[in-house]
């Protein structure tokens, strides 16, 4: 009786030792090499895995930063403090100007007419497949079904009177809304931009007027009057070069449709 207990203990003991050696060898042999930088970057990141950066959680972003695929300031939540720590680890520079998302459309329900009544899912991506790319008369303007609002992890976007509006303070410049918009009307602009054109229509002035009273008609007054030469009209649409703009406000005064803000 006593002997069989000893046998059993011996067998279990030997199996245990063998398995232990095997695991020990395997763990050395099949070791996953982790970049030390990556671990450090991961430690510097907030770690709440919000996905706001567009990577699968903080681990994903840490790997991307360590490989140099993402910028050191790519974490939208951490802000400057985290970015500085990461720069110490991987080097590089931080973009000193904070960018915020901006919806280039001021065509509210009242100002921009709908071409027809839309019945269907309340989602811009799906509504964009309806005839004419959505019910809005203007085929460049904000549809207002809130795909960007749902994409925003930080509750910074709201739909006000049929147009998406970004809360600059809440925006973490992650760029998810830019990807979600089927009409590509959301742009990242410097927080302190002196002049922003609130329209995205590349139609002729006459056609813009026909569907919206808050659209750029491409008259070129802003381009002619800008003392810095910071505005150019391309495809019947004024475009501001934020690097040149000093925020003097001449364009805002001259704009006949008052869409430069």
């Amino acid at each position, binding site marked *: 009786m006593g002997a069989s207990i000893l046998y059993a203990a011996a067998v279990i003991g030997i199996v245990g030792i063998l398995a232990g050696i095997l695991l020990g060898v395997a763990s050395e042999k099949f070791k996953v090499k982790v970049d030390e930088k990556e671990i450090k970057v991961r430690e510097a990141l907030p770690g709440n895995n919000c996905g706001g950066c567009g990577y699968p959680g903080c681990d994903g972003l840490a790997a991307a930063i360590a490989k140099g695929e993402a910028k050191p300031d790519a974490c939208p939540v951490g802000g400057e403090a985290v970015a500085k720590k990461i720069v110490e680890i991987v080097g590089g520079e931080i973009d000193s100007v904070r960018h915020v998302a901006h919806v280039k459309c001021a065509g509210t329900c009242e100002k921009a007419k709908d071409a027809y009544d839309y019945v*269907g899912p309340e989602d811009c991506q799906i509504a964009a497949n*309806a005839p*004419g790319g959505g019910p809005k008369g203007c085929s460049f303007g904000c549809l207002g079904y809130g795909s960007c609002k749902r994409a925003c992890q930080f509750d910074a976007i709201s739909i006000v009177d049929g147009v998406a509006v970004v809360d600059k303070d809440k925006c973490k410049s992650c760029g998810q809304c830019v990807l979600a918009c089927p009409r590509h009307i959301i742009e990242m602009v410097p927080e302190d931009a002196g002049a922003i054109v609130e329209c995205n229509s590349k139609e002729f002035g006459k056609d813009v007027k026909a569907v919206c009273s808050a659209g750029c008609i491409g008259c070129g007054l802003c381009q002619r009057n800008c003392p810095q030469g910071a505005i150019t009209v391309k495809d019947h649409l004024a475009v501001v070069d934020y690097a040149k703009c000093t925020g003097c406000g001449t364009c805002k005064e001259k704009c006949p449709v008052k869409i430069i803000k």
Partner: protein
Amino acid sequence: MKLTFKGGIHPYEGKELTMDKDVIEYVPKGDMVYPLSQHIGAPAKAVVKKGDRVLVGQLIAEAGGFVSANIHSSVSGTVKAVEPRLTASGSKVNSIVIENDNQFEKIEYVKNEKPLAELTKEEILEAIKNAGVVGMGGAGFPTNVKLSPKNADEIDYIIVNASECEPYLTSDYRRLLDETDKVIEGLRLALAIFPKAKGIIAVEDNKPKAIQKLKEVLGNDPDIKVNSMKTKYPEGAERQLIYANTGRYINSKMLPADAGCIVHNVDTVYSICEAVRQGKPLIQRLVTVTGDAITEPCNYLVRIGTSFAELIEAAGGFLQDPEKIIAGGPMMGKAIYDLNIPVTKSSSAILCMTKDEVSEYEPSNCIRCGRCVEVCPGRVMPNKLATLAEQGDLEEFQKLNGMECCECGCCSYVCPAKRHLTQTIAGTRKAILANRKK
């Protein structure tokens, strides 16, 4: 056993409105608009400019690539402009606008009365290409390209899609009944291109007169068979049609030619005959103008480029205010919001529905009844796909074969919760296809 497929629905047919009425030829009065992109593939290139005088049948735009088609004027007059104009898709497409002088001066067509055996394959394809014939069932795929598959020796069947399963539409039926000989001649011409192909004319059994007439004319023809299929929507969808007639499956990654089949619409086959025998370009088609909101629903022989507004006026205008106007049939057609759009090579119908016919409901939550799964001819799960689409999970959507959806609308039709299934799935499919192109 009747020829059919799995799934499908039986919507109200609405064909009695126009089915037994003679076709009326409509002579257009106003300006004609010819969108340069009224087929699948590269847009055609305009060969006329503002101020040019053109005649009926004259080439005004030539094919802009291999998959593209010629466009001809259907009236005589002067070119007014080449500018973007609104089309049935709801977006603006570059178009040639011709001011109609109401003279209808024709160019001379070159007839070809050689017996079938003496016609070469190249001769037939060239004539089809020159005439700008495209698939007239809706998609508008250039016919000469369809008839030149890589595996020409392996084509077993050319199927003429005369099922016309889409409710309200009767233009194919009228064509079949009125021009039986030409439709059959067109099919023979197409068959002459392939060494071992046999013809099938597939008709739903709700058109007994057409089936009877076809059988009378064909007699015991060894090459062409008339198949009577079960009346069910979407019997005329390409994949379902091939399965019902040959038992062969194809999926979204395959072409019918991969299963040894080529499918043509009735009007396309008729146009092949006109193109080869009469040398006549594709400048006219049958359009069903119907719906309860129309005073006199009927089939019209329309010159391509005529505006919808003119055509509705010709049909006696509106009996009552239409709630919804659809270019095409009620299941797969597109709702339009402006009547100043032109009839193109693939516009099969103008359907004007009253408020009674259009029932609008607020969608509610899925009750997991599974009816959409039962009726789906593509054998996918619309309920799951729509949910995944709403959540934006494109990967899982493709894993569950979301790309096999043919957007026939059966799921939306049966859904007791009135969810926008087809619309949601279709939108997501387009988004995925657009991403793939990037």
